[in-house]
Every structure is written in structure tokens, then in C-alpha cells.
């Protein structure tokens, strides 16, 4: 079984995120980079399936050189190899360009399962897995809270507002996972040491056979007109409960016409 896990380096969840003044893209230098949290769950799920059924787990990422840190983390969790698409021409790529680049890198490598986290904590669009499935013409099994593989058949529980849908398809499939699915492992010391020797294939846009004019900020089909920090909220009223806190709160809600 050949498994790919697409991961993304994002600004640390706890850091303040900003847009750049010059080109309105995310300022990736302003904060420490970490592996997108939900992608850790995707790596974990891939490793669990590998432990149960064998095969190889390949990490795929697209991003600047420092995204190599995220690749190493995934390798130290236990993945076998990695492909890192890195090129200045990728800077500012939107979801359409990202899905084009990832689908091109993934196609032809014979992956049976292609994992993603269901959203990145920076862009929060949740569209790239569906777009990659669309481009590859393979089944989309997204927002999975449970994944079962039997032979070449894959069944997931797709999280919905009311509970879940059971969705089935045959390999190859694109899977995105939600955090409910598992508890990602921490890299062990042994894993960290082993990761240093694992193969990382670095690809430029040209190496990957991508057309540069379909990538980057200049190819984006949306443009940012302007942006601004949200004006700070005026300080509210804070009271200390003196035994009548609930009543005071009710009075406030009444003045605001909620009750």
C-alpha cells in the first residue's frame, strides 16, 4: 500500500498572524513555523494503517525552504520518505494553484491513499483536498473521523452537522481527517535520529513539470483589495459575582433584548 500525506507548514497557532504590507500574503517570517495541526492527525492515521497493513508512507509538502522543518517532523514521527516542492514561483499561490501543484506532484506516483488534514489553521478554507480529488479524478473521502481499509476498499465516517455519513470507495482515494480521528504520536528520540537519514526529494517547479504561469500570486484568481486590523473592541462591563451575578447578567441580556 502506497500512502501519501500532504502536510503544510503554518505559523504557530499561538502566534499572532499578519498579512504582509507589500503583497497582502501571509507573513510567514513573522512567526515560528509548525506543522499544521490537523496534518499531524493525517500523518498519525497513515502510520497506523501502515503498521496494520504494511506499505510506505511518503510526506508531500509545498512551501519555502523552512517547510523542511515540518517534513523532518513528519519523518521523525515515522514516515519513510518525503517530497518537498520548493520554488520562489510558488509564493502567493491560491488554493487553485496549490491543488494544481499538489495533484501534479502526486499523479503518476501510484499512491493508493492520499491523506490531508481537513483544514489549515492559517487559510482555513478546507477546499484543497476536494480540489485535489477533482483534479486527479479519484474518490473524495473527506472530513473523516474514522478510516477503515479492507483490501482495496476504503470506508470512512464523514463528520456532518448531525452526526456522520458512512462513505465508501475503492483505492485510490483522497482522505482528509478531523482531529477526532486519533491522538498523534510525539516523535521519539530514535525517530528524530532516524529522520535525518531518510530520503527527501526536493523538486523545483520545472522538475515537477509544472507551468510557472499557473502558480504564485500573479496567477491567483482572487486579489486582495485591502486589509486592516480589526478595530479593538470597546471594553465591556465586568462585574464580580456577589451572589447576584446571574441576575445582573439577566438584566444585561434584557437591556440588549435577548430576553
Amino acid at each position, binding site marked *: 500500500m502506497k500512502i501519501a500525506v500532504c502536510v503544510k507548514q503554518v505559523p504557530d*497557532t*499561538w502566534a*499572532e*498572524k499578519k*498579512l504582509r504590507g507589500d503583497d*497582502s500574503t501571509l507573513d510567514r517570517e513573522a512567526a515560528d513555523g509548525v506543522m499544521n*495541526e*490537523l496534518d499531524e492527525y493525517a500523518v498519525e492515521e497513515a502510520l497506523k494503517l501502515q503498521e496494520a497493513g504494511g506499505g510506505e508512507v511518503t510526506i508531500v509538502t509545498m512551501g519555502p525552504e523552512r517547510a523542511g522543518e515540518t517534513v523532518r517532523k513528519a519523518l521523525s514521527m515515522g514516515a519513510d520518505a518525503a517530497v518537498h516542492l520548493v520554488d520562489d514561483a510558488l509564493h502567493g499561490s*491560491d*488554493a*487553485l494553484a496549490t*491543488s494544481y501543484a499538489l495533484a501534479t506532484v502526486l499523479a503518476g506516483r501510484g499512491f493508493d491513499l492520499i491523506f490531508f488534514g481537513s483544514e489549515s*489553521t492559517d487559510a*482555513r478554507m*478546507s*477546499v*484543497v*483536498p*476536494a*480540489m485535489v*480529488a*477533482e483534479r486527479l*479524478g*479519484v474518490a473524495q473521502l*473527506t*472530513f473523516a*473521523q474514522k478510516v477503515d481499509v479492507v483490501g482495496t476498499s476504503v470506508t470512512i*465516517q464523514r*463528520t*456532518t452537522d*448531525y*452526526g*456522520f*455519513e*458512512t*462513505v*465508501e470507495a475503492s483505492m485510490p482515494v483522497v482522505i482528509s481527517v478531523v*482531529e477526532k480521528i486519533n491522538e498523534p504520536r510525539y516523535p521519539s528520540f530514535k525517530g528524530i535520529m532516524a529522520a535525518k537519514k531518510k530520503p527527501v526529494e526536493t523538486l523545483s517547479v520545472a522538475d515537477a513539470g509544472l507551468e510557472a504561469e499557473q502558480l504564485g500570486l500573479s496567477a491567483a*484568481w*482572487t*486579489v*486582495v483589495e485591502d*486589509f486592516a*486590523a*480589526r478595530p479593538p473592541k470597546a471594553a*465591556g462591563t*465586568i*462585574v*464580580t*459575582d456577589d451572589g447576584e*451575578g*446571574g*441576575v*445582573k*447578567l*439577566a438584566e*444585561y441580556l*434584557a437591556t440588549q433584548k*435577548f*430576553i
Partner: protein
Amino acid sequence: MSEVLVVVEHADGSVKKVTSELLTLARTLGEPSAVWIGPGYSDAAEAALGEFGAAKVYVADGAQYIDHPVAPRAEVLASLVSEHSPSAVLIASSADGKETAGRLAIKINSGVITDAIGISADGIATQSVFGGSTVVHSRVIKGTPIFTVRPNSTPPVAAATTPTKVEVSVPVSEVAMKAKVTGRTVAQKDGRPDLSEAAIVVSGGRGVGAPEGFAVIEALADSLGAAVGASRAATDAGWYPHQYQVGQTGKTVSPQLYVANGISGAIQHRAGMQTSKTIVVVNKDPEAPLFELADFGVVGDLFQVVPQLTEEIKKRA
């Protein structure tokens, strides 16, 4: 006037509130045509769409469109876009909605903007990003603009029309049928409004302390007709089901009123609720960062304050 497609969100045959909001918004951009995909269309549904100004309703009424996730919906929409050349497509920012928008964008070679909280008459979308800390205005510059719009961002305003029903039959491709829905499991029908579109959300966090603690949260929610939410600390601890998680890796909500109980207010949580119109915080820790966002806050034990509030609301009802 140019046609604007509005994809209808429906459950059990009834039109969801977010669709009324999208139709209202669509009227500022052109003439709304609702698109109903899946079984369950009825006269009542048509009336509900007409009430908010749908001039036409395209009805693709067949189980094949929902028995495979997302892909058939994108095919129906791509076919409508190529046939009718609308000026924009509006879809609710649900998981299905965003994925449909993404696939549609590829099919029709168009730009897509997700999670808009407003769209101006000239097509400039407003988004609130990075946990509500930054407001961005952006525009689609290629193809037919596709927008997904967050629930609760436009107050629905009625503008009654009698819609023309147009039956649509789009064959679903084999590729779109590769993934098949074989079952639907309702985890919990609690009778409360949907978390993502509720006007009022009452949430509990670490301070709730145990699964049983959520009884006071639920009681307050029910007194207000609200949905119940939970912070990640509470869902990770197993005190409340994951699908109710509000925050960066859970749902993003933007209700008229958000009542946070025993939630300290990590960025993780704020990212999911910061755009709520009115925020009320109950926490025994006066240093809890969520008080910075509060319009009204009570420093106190939620197990004292919340039941008292619930009683007070019942008295006033």
C-alpha cells in the same frame, strides 16, 4: 438584471435559515435563482424560497445527487453556470458548501472566495481572518465569482416573489460516483438549533469540569432557545461530543449572542467565535483572556451564576 445562483441548504425537506440570508445578499448583486439539489423538494420549500426573493428555482431532485459526497453537486452547478452564465454563485460556508465551491471553481475555471461575511454590489467580499483579528476585502478576477458565505452574516429580509420552477436533470459522471454514501447516522438529535446557524450559542469549557456539568449549560441554552457549544478542552476531555466544538479546528460561529462559560479564551477558541455580535463571559478567573472580548462579564463560579441566570430568564419569560 443578472442572475445570481444561490445553492439551497436544506434538511428533511425544509430550507435552512442561511439560505434566506444568502437570497437576501444575492438580491444586492442581481436576481437570485435558488438551486435545490437532492430529494425532498415541496411546495412549502418553494414558498420558503419565494418569500426571500428567489425568482427561479432550479430543482435537481434526485437521490443520485446526494448519495455521493460533493462531486455531483459541483457537476449540477457547473452545468447551470455554463447554461445560464450567472454573475455569481453563492454557497453557504458549510463543509459540503466549501468543498462544492472548490470543485466548481476548477470545473468552470473561476476564482473562489470562502467564508465571506459580506459582498458589496460590485463584488468585493469581506472576510474576517486569523481568528477575527484582520478584516480583508478581496475580489474574484477570473471567471464567474464563487463565494461561500458564513451563516449569520446577513440579516434575512423578506421580499416575496412567486418563483418559476425549472426542473434540471444533469447526468452524474462515473468519476463523481466513485465515493458512495452507504449510511447516515444521527449521533444526537437534541432538538436545539444547528450550532453553525444558531442566533444564540451557549458554550462550556474547562471550567465545566465534567460531563455532568454540561447539564447547567444545556439548561441555560434551552431557556434561551440556543445551541450548545464546547471548547476544545471540553471535547478533548470527552465531556461533550466533538461535533459541538467551537474553535480553530472545530466550528466557526457568528451568532447574535455568544455566552461562554468556564472558557479561558485561548486563540484556538477565539478563532471560532470572535465575530459573534455580543459576547458574554462567565469565569471564576478574573484574568481569563476571554474577558477582553466580553461585552458583559461575570467573575464568578459558573455553577452559581448560570443556574441563577437560567431561573431569572424563566421568570421573565
